[in-house]
């Protein structure tokens, strides 16, 4: 299978690899996928409590090159975005950016799930209700 140049670039030079303190109230952690499916992504965000802006993001992924690229790209995209802007990122954006073939679309879905899971975790920790978050963003 031929990979797109962007997938190869993210694979060779993954952005924002690492780990943040899961216990911190500013950090949201999303762990999605399953080892038996061959894909596990962990995406973490650090959110500025004043502005709701994602100031940093880190990931680690067990999976194929497309899964690594999708999660690496996701960390790049969420950085600097508000929570609500980040929630607007969809898997189809990732498919387009990385030129993923149909058999790899599930990788992009997983990356979107990871973003949502990380944000969900942060909201839960900070007792941010869905509506309240929207209000802040507006």
């Amino acid at each position: 299978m031929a990979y797109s140049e962007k997938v190869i670039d993210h694979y060779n030079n993954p952005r924002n690899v690492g780990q943040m303190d899961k216990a911190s109230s500013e950090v949201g952690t999303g762990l999605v996928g399953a080892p038996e499916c061959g894909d596990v992504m962990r995406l973490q965000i650090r959110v500025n409590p004043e502005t709701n802006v994602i100031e940093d993001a880190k990931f680690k992924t067990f999976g194929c090159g497309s899964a690594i690229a999708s999660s690496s790209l996701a960390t790049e995209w969420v950085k600097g975005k508000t929570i609500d802007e980040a929630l607007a990122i969809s898997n189809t954006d990732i498919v387009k950016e990385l030129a993923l073939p149909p058999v790899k679309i599930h990788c992009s879905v997983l990356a979107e799930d990871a973003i949502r899971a990380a944000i969900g975790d942060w909201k839960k920790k900070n007792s941010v209700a869905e509506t309240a978050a929207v209000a802040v963003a507006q």
Partner: protein
Amino acid sequence: MSNEMSNNGVVISESTAPLPAGVTLPIYMDNHATTQIDPRVLDTMLPYFGKVFGNAASRNHAFGWEAEQAVEKAREQIAKLIGASAKEIIFTSGATESNNLALKGIAEMYRERGNHIITQVTEHKAVLDTCKKLEKQGYRVTYLPVQADGLIDLEDLKRAIDDKTILVSIMYANNEIGVIQPIAEIGKLCHEKGVIFHTDAVQAVGKIPVDVQKDNIDVLSLSGHKLYGPKGVGALYVRRRNPRVQISEQINGGGHERGMRSGTLNVPGIVGLGAACEIAGQEMEAEGKREKELRDYMKAKFEKALDYVHVNGNMEHHLPGNLNISFVYVEGESLLMGINDIAVSSGSACTSATLEPSYVLKALGLGDDVAHSSIRFGLGRFNTKAEVDYVSDKLIDVVSKLRELSPLYEMVKEGIDLTKIEWAAH
């Protein structure tokens, strides 16, 4: 944050130092898929693409006689390698055809005697899919399980044989995990029960000693391109006495190959297969020893440099050139991507169209995650120590880097039991 770790500098695959002497890229280490034709084999074939073009079935002129002579020489060469007589060798287009002919031909011929066939779950698809087709035609097929090391349990086989059993088909050596089945014992058991024994010996012939007499084999499939011969040619050994095995032909036509396989013979291919068998017979012992040493050396290097390395399949009853190994917590396809100048295979789902990991590894009872992490190395006649060093060093490097990226590896290192996590399957 003090405990925040960052690995922004992770680089998976970088152009490293100049290549060591004797190594040119890409490196081929996938010799279970196919082998490079031996130049000596090619040399013997070439005249038969040119001047010596006769039809081996032309009985009334010199062109035909010359072709026939070449074919009969090859038949002798093949027979000699497996302890058979020349008359017991039927030429086919390859092992898939040989397996089809054996299973369908025996099933049809012995339908009056019974309708039960026994095989095992780790067979090649050429056997499994043929069995499935036979099931649709009213045959009953038992698929024996294998143990965790890939070997079948002879007691399972004993229990499976009943008065309707006409055929047992168990492969000699497995194409993924290299495990060698107890063929002689299986054959003995079959003969005691009056059941025909077929073996798909594609991975074994020319690599390890195979003897149809000592191994009690009645029917055997082999292929040219797995032993440094040409593609598109194979053979089926069919025992002529003690017992005499009969096979219903599956291709009708001019009655070639004693009526068992019609079709004008592929003379250059057959000449090549014969030459390949002769060379294998002469060099097998030394070559097997060399490959086994290289294989064990590579295995030791991996085990020394990396933790969580899982070797798949029984290593005692094992093809010399095979190493199937799981680099746990690293997904196989991502690993292949990091070593794209090295040709090996992975049992990962992502490398197949089905998104299912290798059915052979799953049959060993391995978790899907271990199967997803597997790499199959197939060492062959043309691999060198320098290549083995390059490949193992590169693998160790890429596995280490991908583990820096692996949340599973990190969690295991932190003492988290991955089986206790409620994963959201997708």
